C-alpha cells in the first residue's frame, strides 16, 4: 500500500518536516549527509509484473535487489547496468535513486538508459505515473529517467519499470600487463573495434578485460586480444568495492572523465574502469585540486566515500544549471522536505 507513504509525505509537507527516504540503508554513505525523519520504503516490495519475452520488469521500491536479480536470473535475464549493492540490504528504489552502475556501464549503458517508467510520489503526496512498460515512449517529458540519480530529492520512487536483457551465453576475463597511458590507449582502441568487451579495468600495471557474448564472438575476440586468463570474480569485487584498492582511510574520489582523457596528475592511488571513463582515486589531495583536475580533463569529481564531506559530495553546478535544479526541485517538492541537502546543500 502506498497510501501511508502519501499520507506521511503530505503531513511532512504541511509541517515542513524534512524526510529521509531510505530503503536498506546500503548507500547511506553516498552523497551529502542524509537528514530528516526516516521514511522506510522496504514495506512496499515485490514484483508487479515480469514478462521475460517483453524484456520488461516492473517492481516496487522496497524489493531487495538480490531478490530481483534472482528472479531475472531464473529466466536467464539480468539488469544490464550491473548495479552495485554496497550491502545486503540494497533495494530497487535505492538503486534507481542513486543511479550508480557497475562494470558494464561503458558497454551497456547507465541506470537511466534502462528505466522505462516510474510511479512517483511527489512532495505533495501525489501518485504520478510517467513513462510506461514499453521500449519506446516519447509522450510527455522523460520524467522517469530524470529520477535515476536524483537521490530521492524529487519524490519517492514507488515503482519502476526496467528494460532487462538476456544474459550473455559466454564470458571470459583476460589479464594483460600495461602502464597507465598504454592501458588507456588500449582500452579506447578496443572500444573502437567490434569486440564484445563488456568491462575493463586497470590497476597497478595490470589491465583486465571481460568479453561477453555468443561463444564464437568471445572466442575470436580473446584470440585477438591475447594476454592471460583472469579471475571473473574481479568484476564483482570492483562493483562492490571489495577489491583491496578500496581499503584504507584516505577519501575515495570518483572521477568521471572522457575515456581518452590523459592520466590524472594527482597524488594517491588510482584504479580505472569503464574503458578509461571512470577513474577511482584514493587520495588526501584537496578537494579543490581534485575537482580542478577533473574539470580540466573534461569531467567532474564526486567525493564518494569520506569522513569529511564539507566540500560537498558533488561538483558544484554552474549558475544556469543550479537555477534549473532549484526550479525543478520546487516543481516536484515545493515544501523542500524530501532528502534536503542530500544532492546539493541548498535544496
Amino acid at each position, binding site marked *: 500500500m502506498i497510501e501511508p507513504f502519501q499520507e506521511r509525505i503530505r503531513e511532512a509537507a504541511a509541517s515542513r518536516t524534512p524526510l529521509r527516504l531510505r530503503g536498506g540503508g546500503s548507500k547511506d554513505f553516498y552523497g551529502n549527509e542524509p537528514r530528516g525523519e526516516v521514511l522506510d520504503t522496504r514495506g512496499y516490495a515485490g514484483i508487479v509484473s515480469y514478462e521475460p519475452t517483453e524484456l520488461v520488469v516492473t517492481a516496487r521500491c522496497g524489493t531487495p535487489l538480490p531478490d530481483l536479480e534472482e528472479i531475472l536470473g531464473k529466466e536467464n535475464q539480468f539488469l544490464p547496468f550491473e548495479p552495485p549493492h554496497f550491502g545486503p540490504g540494497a533495494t530497487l528504489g535505492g538503486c534507481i535513486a542513486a543511479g550508480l552502475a557497475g562494470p558494464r556501464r561503458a558497454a551497456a549503458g547507465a541506470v537511466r538508459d534502462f528505466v522505462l517508467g516510474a510511479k512517483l510520489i511527489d512532495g505533495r503526496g*501525489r501518485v504520478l505515473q510517467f513513462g*510506461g512498460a514499453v*521500449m519506446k515512449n516519447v509522450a510527455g517529458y*522523460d520524467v522517469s529517467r530524470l529520477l535515476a*540519480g536524483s537521490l530521492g530529492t524529487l519524490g519517492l520512487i514507488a515503482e519502476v519499470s526496467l528494460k532487462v536483457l538476456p544474459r550473455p551465453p559466454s564470458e571470459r576475463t583476460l589479464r594483460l600487463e600495461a602502464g597507465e597511458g598504454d592501458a588507456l590507449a588500449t582500452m579506447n582502441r578496443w572500444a573502437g573495434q567490434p569486440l564484445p568487451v563488456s568491462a575493463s579495468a586497470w590497476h597497478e600495471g595490470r589491465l583486465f578485460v571481460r568479453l561477453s557474448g555468443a*561463444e564464437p564472438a568471445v572466442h575470436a575476440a580473446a584470440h585477438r586480444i591475447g594476454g592471460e586468463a583472469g579471475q571473473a570474480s574481479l568484476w564483482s569485487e570492483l562493483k562492490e568495492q571489495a577489491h583491496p584498492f578500496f581499503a584504507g582511510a584516505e577519501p575515495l574520489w570518483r572521477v568521471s572523465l572522457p575515456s581518452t582523457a590523459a592520466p590524472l596528475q594527482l597524488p594517491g592511488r588510482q584504479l580505472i574502469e569503464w574503458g578509461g571513463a571512470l577513474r577511482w582515486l584514493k587520495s588526501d589531495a584537496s578537494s579543490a585540486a581534485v575537482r580542478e583536475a577533473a574539470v580540466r580533463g573534461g569531467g567532474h569529481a564526486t567525493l564518494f566515500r569520506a569522513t569529511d564531506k564539507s566540500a560537498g559530495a558533488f561538483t558544484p553546478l554552474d549558475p544556469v544549471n543550479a537555477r534549473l*535544479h532549484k526550479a525543478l526541485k520546487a516543481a516536484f517538492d515545493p515544501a523542500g522536505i524530501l532528502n534536503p541537502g542530500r544532492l546539493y546543500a541548498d535544496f
Partner: protein
Amino acid sequence: MGSRLPVVNALRGFLPARAVLHEEEDTRPYECDGLTAYRQLPMVVALPETEEQVQQILKTCFSLKIPVVPRGAGTGLSGGALPPGDGVLLSMAKFMRAVRVDPAARVAVVQPGVRNAAISELAAPHGLYYAPDPSSQIACTIGGNVAENSGGVHCLKYGLTLHNVLGVRGFTVEGEPIALGGEALDSPGYDLLALAIGSEGMLMVMTEVTVKLLPKAQSARVIMASFADVEKAGDAVAKIIAAGIIPAGLEMMDKPATRAVEEFVGAGYDLEAAAILLCESDGSAEEVEDEIARMKAVLEGAGATRMTVSRDEAERLRFWSGRKAAFPAVGRISPDYYCMDGTIPRKRLGEVLNFIAALEKKYGLRCPNVFHAGDGNLHPLILFDANDAGELDRTERFAAEVLEKCVAVGGTITGEHGVGVEKINQMCVQFRPDELELFRAVKHAFDPAGLLNPGKAVPTLARCAEYGRMHVHGGKLPHADLPRF
C-alpha cells in the same frame, strides 16, 4: 499582423536582411513540417548562422515577449515545428557544420542541422557509425532527432537517440548559454540531458550536439520470413526474444504494406504472406552465422512458411530498402496517408491489429501496417484523400481510436514521432491532470514565460476538459475510466 514590423526591425539590427523572412512568398515554405494537415504561416522566419545570432534572437524575442519555435529539416511527423502565427520560426538549417570527429574517443560533435545519415558518413572512414537510423535519415537532422528522441529500425539492440547522445549545448529561452552532459559518461546533479532529449524543442534551443559513435559490425545478414497470419508473426518475435536473442533489427510488415512497397522498390518480398518479418543479425562473421542459424530454427518452429537469408550486403540493403521506403511507397497508392506511432506490449499485437482491421471497415478506409516489432512500436498508415473533407475527418477519428487503444493495452500514444500538435488530445487520455500539471511545472522551470514552442506536447487542463466532453457527447467512455498502464 500588427506587431510584425518591430520584430523584423529588431532582428535586422543584427541579422543580415536575407536571414529575416517575413513576406508571404518567403515564409510559405515554413508553414508546416512533415505533418502537412496542420499549417500556419509564421509571422517571421529567422535563419541564424552563428551561436551569437541564436542567442540574440532569443534575447530579442524574450524581451518582446513573443514565441519562438525551433525547426530542423522539417521532417517531423507530429507538427512539433508548426510555426507560431505571432512569433519567430527559428530555422537551424544553416547549422550544418561537423565541428569535429574524434575517432579515438568515438564521438562526433556536430551542429544541429547536420543530417542523421551524414554523421555516419563522416564516421565511416574510421570504421564507426551513429546508430539511430530513423527512416527519414537521409533528410532529418540531429537537432530534430534529439528534440523528438527519434528511433529507427535498430533500436532494440542499439537504443534510441537518448542512448546515443552524450551532450548538448545551446541556450535557454532567455538566451543564456547552457550545456548538458558532455564527453564523460555522466554529469553532476540531475540528468537534465535525459529530460532535454525528447522535449520537443520546449526546454532549450540546441546549437551543438555530441553523439556517441559505435564500431561498425564486421558483418550483418537479414532473414526475411513469411507468415500465414500476423499473430503467428507476432508470436515468432516473442519466441526469438525468449531464446535469448536480441536481433540487430526486427521489423514486421503486413500484406497491404509489402504489396505497396514491392511495386515501388522491388525488394523481393513474399507477396502471398499475411506478414513478413525482417530479422537482422550483426557482429563478427562467426557470431552472425551462429545467430542466423538459431533465429532460423526459432522462426521455423514458430510457423514461418518461407525464409530467405540475405547472401550479400547488396541483398541485405535491398531487403531493408522496402521497409525504409514504406512511407513513400504508401504515398504512391493513395493521395494522402496518415502515419500513426503507438507503442504496445508486443503480446497484444494480434488484438491491436484485429482492432485496426475492424476500424478499417467501420470508417471505410484502408490501413496497411509497418511495425518495429522488436520495440512494440506500430506505424499503421491510414490511406485517405485530403480533398474529401469527410475522409479527413474519418481519418482523424480512426487515428484517435487506435492511439487510445494503444493506451488501453498498456502502451503509449507515441513511440518516436512525438506529441507535437497532432496527439495533444490523446495526452489527456494517457495522463491524469496531476501528471499533466507536473509536465507544465517542468516546462515552467525552464521557460517561465512559456515562449519556447508554446502549445505543443503538453495540453492545458481546459483543452483536456473540452476533449473529454467531446468524447462524452460522442457517446464514448470518458477517458478517466480507461485502464492505465
